[in-house]
């Protein structure tokens, strides 16, 4: 909310400087967001009178002036303005003055051989409007030596405060002044409005037409007619007030209501009485009704909107905006002034639904001072009579003031309990009283007070609010930092298994050369559907953009977007990963934590791009498989425990992908090459491989009673290695060959590797050659050749039996 210092001072008598006022506002919770002070920027400029002006000896267009700036003797100033003449009163900038429009600071100088002790200025040079073909021409009575800004009325700083939603009491200049007075920054000078005696009964009767349970929608409605007014432009002072905070003056009657809104936080409405037919009924709107409001727009209404209607229909939206057809203009002679109370929640709902932002709505939805409903009407009537003349009726009232809130039982010790600050009880009581609270002793309990909040503080509900009032005026700087007790000498571990795994996974994937991205939690519907999501329950009702509409079922679409965008910038070989939330349902347990990564182009684990050390290879499924198993290892998940099933979701290449699972019911992820169709749909080209693992689906390590590692068993005999080349059907999986070989002797065989794979000439077209290296670890004694031969034969037989492979000749 904006207001000027002079406006504030129309309610507050204070000697405090602007800085003190601004600091106090911020300190008591009315944060100053902006402070414009022309007097400060223009502080150096003074009023001066040119005593003599003579031709410069060395320049045709310059004059050498003797200027009276209010000091003992005149100063010599060289001036180039055509209107620089003896006797002219103008604006002078002494050396050291900052010239805003020119962005420089004037200094003493010598101009064409003549000394010059300052500068005479045009309006433009001060950043002001006005004739700038020459220097200022001030009236004869302008006081020489005085600061120009003060003389010109420019020294009225504009203060902009950021009003929090609870402080409806400060949504007016008067309210701000009242809070500053409570903070002992000055005295509130504004008195309660004097009633205006009505000369005749109000000819229009307001009627509240609500069901019993709806009474709260409009508790009180006061109305008064002023007849015989002359409406026109409001006086200069009122227009200036409104303009100072950026409002456009319209006519006196409308300006008065705006003034009351900002000056006193009391929104009013004025009807042109001649345009109102019959009495005013305050009621819920009916479906199908509509109103052309003062903003010229037509609003369709329903029964949730409270309206003021006459015999013709709806004339005004209660507390939000009036109707165009009954508005006041220059022809208005009889005016009905309305001052009412509305239900804040209903006003907020109406304003939101109709999309109307108005100064009245702003105040009513936060809560206006109910006790000021009728006094506000009296004050407005006085202004109308003063500015527009006329004769006022008596006030017609419908409804009644709601009962004030019950007093709060307040132990003064509550302040120290919540803030740690011990304040003098009498100071605390004084603070509350300054703020308008009414205090009463609690019978038989000396430390407790019965505290009743003033009518203008609807936000005060309980003890904590009173603590806040006391501490905000005492100053939050009174709160002393107090150490929290340590829980133990050494801080213990706090992370959960999943939190540890997330952190470990992040470092592990980065260590494999990948870059961590954080992408949007929402993606487009088509992407969501492609990756198994897109359920209606996970679609936003109000997405910020059409392609950010559905909660992501997978991290991979976001990473693919990243790959595409980076490729478009010329970075096609990228390895990125993300660890974050994915959404399967909208339930609490429908959100999972996934780790996913993507490699594109040549971004292999060894590095991307071309290199002298070998041919440039594209990423392939084994790169992401290696990523997955590195990750599982870091997370403490045994590679043997994970089952790997060829194939995966539909967005993957069916022959170059695998599903990771701990049994068929517990699928934890996948890796593979993206399906060419999926890439096409997503508008990105390959080669592109990816993996995704649900970290919360991984098994937890067993709880062990000790941190000691299992005993290390070292064999006394050297291991030995034997190689076997098998010819086998192409469709047989390497894993089955390995498993069969291992099965030949689970004690002796400690490792089986694949060291060669061959298809081509020499091998039938439906077969492949797979070469295994088998490591044998003797335990008891060195193996004899006969024993080794026997074991080799067993391996060949076992592999043949399980897979149909034969030893290559």
């Amino acid at each position, binding site marked *: 909310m904006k207001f000027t210092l002079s406006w504030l001072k129309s309610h507050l008598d204070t000697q405090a400087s602007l800085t003190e006022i601004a600091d106090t506002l*911020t300190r008591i*919770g009315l*944060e100053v967001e902006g402070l414009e002070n022309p007097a400060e920027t223009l502080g150096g400029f003074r009023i001066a009178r040119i005593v003599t002006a003579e031709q410069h000896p060395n320049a045709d267009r310059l004059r050498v002036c003797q200027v009276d700036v209010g000091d003992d003797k005149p100063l010599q100033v060289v001036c180039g303005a055509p209107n620089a003449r003896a006797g002219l009163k103008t604006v002078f900038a002494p050396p050291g003055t900052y010239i805003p429009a020119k962005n420089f600071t004037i200094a003493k100088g010598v101009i064409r051989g003549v000394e010059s002790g300052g500068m005479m200025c045009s309006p433009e040079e001060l950043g002001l409007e006005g004739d700038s073909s020459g220097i200022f021409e001030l009236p004869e009575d302008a006081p020489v030596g005085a600061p120009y800004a003060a003389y010109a009325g420019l020294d009225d700083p504009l203060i902009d405060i950021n009003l*929090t*939603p*609870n402080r409806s009491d400060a949504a007016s200049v008067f309210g701000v002044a009242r809070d500053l007075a409570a903070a002992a920054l000055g005295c509130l000078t504004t008195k309660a409005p004097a009633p205006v005696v009505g000369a005749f009964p109000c000819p229009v009767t307001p009627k509240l037409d609500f069901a019993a349970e709806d009474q709260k929608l409009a508790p009180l409605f006061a109305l008064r007619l002023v007849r015989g007014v002359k409406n026109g432009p409001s006086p200069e002072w009122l227009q200036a007030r409104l303009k100072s905070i950026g409002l456009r003056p319209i006519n006196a009657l409308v300006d008065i209501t705006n003034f009351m809104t900002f000056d006193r936080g009391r929104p009013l409405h004025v009807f042109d009485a001649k345009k109102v037919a019959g009495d005013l009924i305050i009621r819920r709107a009916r479906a199908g009704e509509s109103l052309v409001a003062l903003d010229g727009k037509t609003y369709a209404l329903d029964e949730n909107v409270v309206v003021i209607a006459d015999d013709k229909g709806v004339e005004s939206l209660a507390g939000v905006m009036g109707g165009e057809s009954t508005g006041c203009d220059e022809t208005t002679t009889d005016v009905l002034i309305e001052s009412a109370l509305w239900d804040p*929640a*209903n006003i907020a709902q109406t304003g939101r639904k109709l999309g109307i932002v108005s100064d009245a709505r702003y105040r009513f939805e936060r809560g206006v001072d109910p006790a000021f409903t009728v006094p506000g009407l009296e004050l407005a009537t006085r202004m109308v009579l003063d500015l527009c003349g006329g004769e006022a009726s008596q006030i017609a009232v419908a409804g009644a003031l709601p009962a004030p809130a019950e007093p709060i039982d307040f132990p003064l010790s509550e302040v*120290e309990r*919540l*803030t740690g600050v011990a304040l003098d009880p009498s100071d605390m009581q004084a603070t509350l009283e300054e703020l308008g609270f009414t205090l009463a002793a609690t019978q038989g309990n000396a430390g407790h007070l019965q505290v009743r909040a003033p009518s203008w503080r609807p936000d005060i509900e309980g003890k*904590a*609010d009173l*603590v*806040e009032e006391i*501490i*905000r005026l005492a100053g*939050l*700087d009174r*709160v*002393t*930092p107090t150490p*929290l007790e*340590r829980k133990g000498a050494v801080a213990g571990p*706090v*992370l959960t298994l999943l*939190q540890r795994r997330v952190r470990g996974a*992040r470092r592990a994937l*980065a*260590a*494999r*050369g990948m*870059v*961590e*991205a*954080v992408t949007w*939690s*929402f993606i487009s519907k088509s992407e969501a559907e492609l990756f198994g999501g897109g359920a*209606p*329950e*996970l679609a*936003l*009702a*109000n997405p*910020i953009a059409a392609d*950010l509409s559905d909660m992501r079922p997978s991290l991979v679409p976001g990473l693919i977007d*990243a790959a595409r*965008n*980076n490729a478009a910038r010329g*970075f096609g070989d*990228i390895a*990125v990963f993300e*660890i974050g939330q994915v*959404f399967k349902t*909208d339930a609490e347990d429908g*959100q999972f934590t996934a780790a996913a990564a993507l490699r594109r182009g040549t971004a292999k*684990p060894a*590095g991307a791009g071309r*290199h002298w*050390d070998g041919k440039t290879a594209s990423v392939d499924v084994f790169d992401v498989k290696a990523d997955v198993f590195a990750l599982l290892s870091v997370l403490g998940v045994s590679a043997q425990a994970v089952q790997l099933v060829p194939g995966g979701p539909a967005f993957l290449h069916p022959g170059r992908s695998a599903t990771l699972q701990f049994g068929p019911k517990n699928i934890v992820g996948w890796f593979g090459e993206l399906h060419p169709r999926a890439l096409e749909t997503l508008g990105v080209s390959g080669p592109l491989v990816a993996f995704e693992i649900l970290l919360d689906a991984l098994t937890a390590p067993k709880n062990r009673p000790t941190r000691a590692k299992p005993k290390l068993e070292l064999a006394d005999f050297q291991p030995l290695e034997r190689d076997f080349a098998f010819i086998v059907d192409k469709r047989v999986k390497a894993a089955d060959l390995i498993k069969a070989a291992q099965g030949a002797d689970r004690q002796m065989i400690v490792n089986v590797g694949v060291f060669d794979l061959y298809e081509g000439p020499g091998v039938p077209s439906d077969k492949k050659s797979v070469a295994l290296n088998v490591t044998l670890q003797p335990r008891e004694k060195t193996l004899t050749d006969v024993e080794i031969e026997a074991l080799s034969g067993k391996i060949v037989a076992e592999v043949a039996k399980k897979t149909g492979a034969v030893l290559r000749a």
Partner: protein
Amino acid sequence: MSDLQKLEAETLAAIDAAADEAALENVRVAALGKKGSISALLATLGKMSPDERKSEGARINALKDKVGEALSARKTVLKEAALEARLASETLDVTLPTRASGLEAGRIHPISQVMDELTAIFSDMGFSIAEGPDVESDDYNFTKLNFPPGHPAREMHDTFFFNRKANGERKLLRTHTSPVQVRTMLKNPPPIRVICPGRTYRCDSDQTHTPMFHQVEGLVIDRKAHMGHLKWVLEEFCKTFFEVPNVKMRFRPSFFPFTEPSAEVDIQCSRKGGDMRFGEGDDWLEILGCGMVHPNVLRNCGLDPDEFQGFAWGMGIDRIAMLKYGMNDLRAFFEADVRWLQHYGFRPLDLPTLAGGLSS
């Protein structure tokens, strides 16, 4: 010159002349081999008289030893030369570039790094880390946090909603991490010390607002935690996080529906030359909101506000990351531009610890 002297001179000359180990071996065989010249001389000893044998034997054996030493010395020289030659031929251009390893190329996103920094600081102060779902109920995101239905404070949140279901329920994306406070209080009895980092969402977008951002919430509930403790926690946090010996903070009364009294906190800073520095200067920068947990919130979470009390605070993780590490556009955090990530990201083993320093 005797024959023996001649043989010595010839043999030593041949040894010197041998250009490689193979030539040297030929010389050795020619002199000391079975049919070698010196071996032949030795064979003549058997036919000599004992006296003659004695004198000639000594001379021939001396020659044999001398030749043997010369062979061995020459062999060492030739072996050394051969090794030199091999090494020379094996020379590689070691200025050829190597590939950057994963440890050099990988990056951690600044948000993750800052979350790890937060964890390091607050775990030392005895805080655990609580998390909650992004898809929340209206009840946990607003009502239990003392936002009455229809209150203007709700409107200030620019909430993303899901479609209303047949049963009237309408889920939303949490607008702050405060619902995790509620979940924590409902689940765990006091004393409570948690921080709740996570993603939050508001329907807003410009240079300093993105529809998705990250917040961290702090909550302390026990029987005596007051604003003095709150101030201490925040001051200690800011000092440690921004890695400055002192910070000056300014607490301003403010409003949040879920705290009472409430405050916003500014931190002293200087912006000389576009560089943000904390603990000096005469500017103030708003950094977080905080307050004593509102009695209604405690009640809504099953705690008696006359028995239990505590405080909470919330701040933007992305925002404090920007302030500490100097990024100026929040939107770039979520654009996954590898150039940005490489520049502002952290290396895989840059683990923030209190012992080693958060960012050194």
